[in-house]
Structure formats: C-alpha cells, structure tokens
C-alpha cells in the first residue's frame, strides 16, 4: 500500500496544529464547561471519579463493577433461589430460543443485491 499524501506539507502541518489546538480547547474549556453546566453529566462525572470507573472500557473484564456485580448476584441467587439457579430447563429454553432465532435467520435473512 502506498502513502496517500496529497496535501502540501505546509497546509498539512497547519491542519495538524489546528486540530491539536481544537482538541486542547475541548479538553480544557468546552468539555469541562459541559461537565459543570449539564446537570446530569455533572453528577455522572462525580460518580465516575468517586468510583474510579473507566467509562471508556469496551469489555466487562475492564470494569470492576462487572466482577462485583457477578459475585453479588450469583451469591444472591445461590442463597435465596437455589432451586432456580444454574442450567435449569427454563434457563436452557432461553438458550434454545436464541439458537432457534439464529437458525431461522440463517434460512430466511434477505439476500438482496443492493450494490450500486
């Protein structure tokens, strides 16, 4: 693959510098202004800081709350609903539902040719 440089160097550098300048404006002026003056956002920011939540995480493994939640809920289910806990027939029916839906999709999803 070749480099796709098309813009003159001076213009390129101007664009890069302007971009970083705009990022700086957002990070230190616009962003904090929004955090302080949008009421719900202000509270969520406080919650993020207090609980040390990584709000940019993409997977459950990156969030402590997932593990705490799992432990808490598993223990609650084992403790109070042991007969309904685990791979019960009703639970397995949910998994079967999921695979049945996908099987139907495999067979019936449209095969339109929408290419332009």
């Amino acid at each position, binding site marked *: 693959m070749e480099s796709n440089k098309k813009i003159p160097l001076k213009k390129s550098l101007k664009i890069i510098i302007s971009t970083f300048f705009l990022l700086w404006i957002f990070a230190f002026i616009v962003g904090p202004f929004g955090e302080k003056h949008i009421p719900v956002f202000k509270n969520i920011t406080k919650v993020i800081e207090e609980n*040390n939540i990584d709000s940019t995480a993409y*997977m459950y493994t990156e969030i402590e709350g997932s593990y705490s939640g799992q432990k808490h809920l598993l223990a609650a289910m084992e403790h109070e609903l042991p007969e309904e806990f685990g791979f019960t027939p009703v639970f397995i029916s949910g998994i079967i539902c999921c695979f049945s839906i996908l099987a139907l999709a495999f067979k019936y999803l449209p095969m339109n040719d929408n290419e332009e």
Partner: protein
Amino acid sequence: MADNASDIVQDVGKWEWSEMWKKEDWWAIWLGFIILIAGAVIYFPQTGELKQKLSQIEAKFKPDVEKTKEFKTIAWYQLNEEKAKIKAKDSSIGKWLSKVTSYPKGWVANPLDTFFMSKEKAEKKYNKAMAKYDETKVNTKTALEKAKAAELKAQEASFKNKTLNEEAKLAIMNWRNVQLKEISAKKKVSAAKSYNQIIPLLGLGVFMAIFFGIGMKFMGKSFKEFLTGFSFVYLITVLSWIASNQATMKHYGIGYAAWAIFFGMLISNTIGTPKWAMPAVQTEYYIKTGLVLLGATILFEKIITIGTAGIFVAWVVTPVVWIVTYWFGQKIIKIPSKRLNATICSDMSVCGVSAAIATAAACKAKKEELTLAVGLSLVFTSVMMIVMPAVIHAFFPEDKQLVLGGAWMGGTIDATGAVAAAGAFLGEKALYVAATIKMIQNVMIGVMAFFVAIYFTTKVEAAETGHKVGLMEIWYRFPKFVLGFIGASIIFSLFYSSFQAAQNGLGPAMIDQGVIKGMSDLFRSWFFTLSFVSIGLATNFRELKHHFKGGKPLILYVFGQSFNLALTLLAAYVVFYLIFPEITAAI
C-alpha cells in the same frame, strides 16, 4: 477483513498444510495461544494455595451467612468482599506483568503526568487520599456498629419479626453504601505511588515488535522493515492512550479506539503515512490476535449469573434486534454493503466496539466499514450514558429504577464502561444488574461471530460468486482465526467451570483474576489499539465518505437502537416483574 487488493471473492478452494505457518489467521491463533498458555503456566500452579485461603474464609463467615434467609447478613457481604480479594494475579510475577504492560497513566492538565509522577507529588496525593480514607473508615465503623445492633435485635426475635428484619436490612444497606466509599477511597490510597512509565513503555514496544515480527518473518515479510515501521505505529498507539486517559476525554467516554482511528486518519490524510511505516500497518494481523485473546474472556458459565431473566433479556432480545435491524438495512433502506450492515447490527445490538471488531473480522468487512460502525457506536454511547439515567430517574417508578433501569441500560448502551458509569449513577444494584446484563451480552460475541462467519461464508459469498460452495470451499473461506476465538472460549470456559466445581469456586480467582486480567487483558487492548491505528493510517477520507452516502448507516443505527431500546425495556419488565419476580426480589 477484506484485503484492499482483492475485494472480489476468489473461487479457489484449496487447503495446504503450510497455511498453518504462512497465513495471518493461523499466526493470530498461535500468538494468541502463546499468551494464554503463558498465563495458565504462570497462574495455575497457585491453585492449592488459593484454594486453602478460600476454604479458610468460607469457614470463618459461613455460619453467620447461613443463620437466616430473610435478608443478606453482614457476614454475607463480608464473605463476598474477602473472596473478591483472592486473585491469582496478585502474585509477584502478576504484579510485574501488570507494571511492564501498563498504559500511560491518567492526567488532567499536564501531559507529562502520564509518564512521570515524582515522589513528592505522589506523597501529596497519598496524604490527600489517606485523609479521605481515614474519614470513610470512621463512617464505616459507625455504620457497622449500627448494622450489627439491628441484626442482633432481629436475631433475638429468631428473624421472625418483619419490622426488625426490615430495620436490619436497611441498617446493613446503609453500612454497605458507606463501606463501598471506604473501599473506593482505599484504592485511591494504593494508587498514589510515584512512577516512571518511559522504560516499561519502551520495553513493551520492543517486545510487541519482536512478538509480531516473528510471525511476519514466517509469512514471508521482512522482519527488519516490520520492526522499523512498528516504531511509528507504536508511537501513535501510545499517543492514542495518552489522549484517552485525559480526564475530560474519560468523562465523555472517548476511548482508545476513537483516538487511534482519529490520529491515524489525521496523519494519513495530511502529511501522509510514511512509506517505511507501511510494513507494520497490519490491521487484520493485530485484530485477529486480539480477538483470540478476547475469546478467552467469553466464559459460558457467566450467563447463569442473573438466572433466566438475564438470559432472556441478553440472549433472546439481542438476536431479535440484530435480525430485524439487518432485515431493515437490506430491505428498507437498501444498504449496499451486507458487511457494513452486519457490523453495525452487532455493535448496536450486542456490545459495541468489541462486537463490531469480531463481526467485521468474521464477515471480512472493509476497514472503513469497521471505522464507521465504531464511530457511530461511540457517539451514541456517550449520549446514552448521560440521557438514559436521567430518563430513568425522571420517569421510572422508584421501585423499578434499579433493577428495570439497570437491565434496560445494560441491554442497550453499547460500551461496558458507559454502562457501569450510568448504572453507578443510579445506585449499586443498578450498577450490578446493568454490568451483569452487559457481561452476558459480551458472551454473545462468540455466538454472533460464529453465526456471521458461517452465514457470510456459506450464503453471502456463495451468492457473490454465483454458485453453491462445497464443504472444502467453506473450510477454505472460513476465517480461521474464529476457530482460535471459539477454541479459546471453549477451553477457558471448561477451565472456569472445572475450577468452580472441583476447586471450591476458584474460577473467578484463577481465570478472571488470573489468566484474563493477569495476562490476556494486559495485551488485548494494546493489540486492538495497534489495529485501529493501522486502520486510520490506511484510510482515506474520501473512501469513508463513500460508505456514509445518503446517511444510510446513521439511519440504520438509529432505527436499530430505537427498536433495541423499546424491546429491551419491554422484555426486562416482563421477565423481571411479571414472569420471574422472585429473581428481582432476590437481587
């Protein structure tokens, strides 16, 4: 994903054993498994020691846990807190691995804070955190005494007096809320240490360059050229993490994926990606290796966490939303690219960026299609993180805000981090329910990736070539890294279940807090970042604009997410309050 040089599917099904050391998909599997096996070798020998610790904790608290089923006793919470502290990754080698693979640190105003913290600054931070921690310790002690007194009163009435039981429950809840603040304050004390990230970051860069370079050599590419190019790609990767860890950006949920694509595209569309960097611009190679590591986090036993209610919200609603949105995209708005359609469906209905990556790789989507899907997801995630808790708070009845609100957010907000932030805003229970529903949806990535791979290999590509494909052709075209992804998931799910059953519930300590957080996770996000930087460095704005023609991807996302919001809310209400109210009461 589709290679730029060959967008048309070639009908040349032919298997050669040499593929297993010459092709990228197989190298992704080998490299991914090298890391996973290393994790198992490092952490599994601790089984005996950790099992003993767990047994001691259970023996200490179990009698008080089992004294009543009317409410969760103080001992119940203490037992779970102590069990949570048992982590295989807390060994000396685990701590060392965590240190040498850590990302640039968080910063507020001074970007140098991401690399250095002096002893003086660390001491100042420590003193401030310690003062706060001391304050919370006093509050916790007071609340615990009140909770103990209330529990004792209830116990003296043999837990038969409903009023005393309710008072005990409330007092314990109050203690628990205060204790969580203490735990959070203690973490800030532990984090207040001086650091110098430069040497670890340099070392990690060298390691990853050699790690990936070996595969490149076997695939017939120049090792030296790859190493040279990798220095550039790695530099942009580190820059992406620096931007992602700036405080304001974290609050808005703008993570490494967005920054990696942004900086990559900024370079490629202005000064241009240097020719000498191109040998290391290997989107698929990095992403597939990361996906094999991601496979190990897809642990099937986790889907039982919240019982039948959780499986219906996460595993029945999700495929329905995916299919209806895909149908809408094909039949109504007529999106030209089925692969873009599928990728957007996954990121919107399953779990955002991770699902988009897995689906795009499974159906061989173009990098611009992945970029678009990820971009749409990130924008709407930030908005939903702020709006949904406000809506729940304003319009949901108070007794339904935590469980119903938590399930609704968990099933609809794309990114786990945003789900956690929104859930925590409502309360601990909402956080737990939301994060758990999202975790069960994360497990669905494996199912959806496999479905998409099979569907596109057997149906879509067959239609594109104009004739049916035989089994050998299916095998040849099937994205092999998916086998590594599914294989890692099955193997580690079996390990997890085995540790849970045979080793006294050691699954979380050994797999979650061992192989996953102590090994796989340390590298996975780095690999994904390298991949997104590569996407950015190889993407032209004009190509991206072409895929956004008519705003169809945006219309698709909005339709799908609106349907997702409606169906998830309905399903969550039905399962948590009409069909399985006992589960809701137990949470």
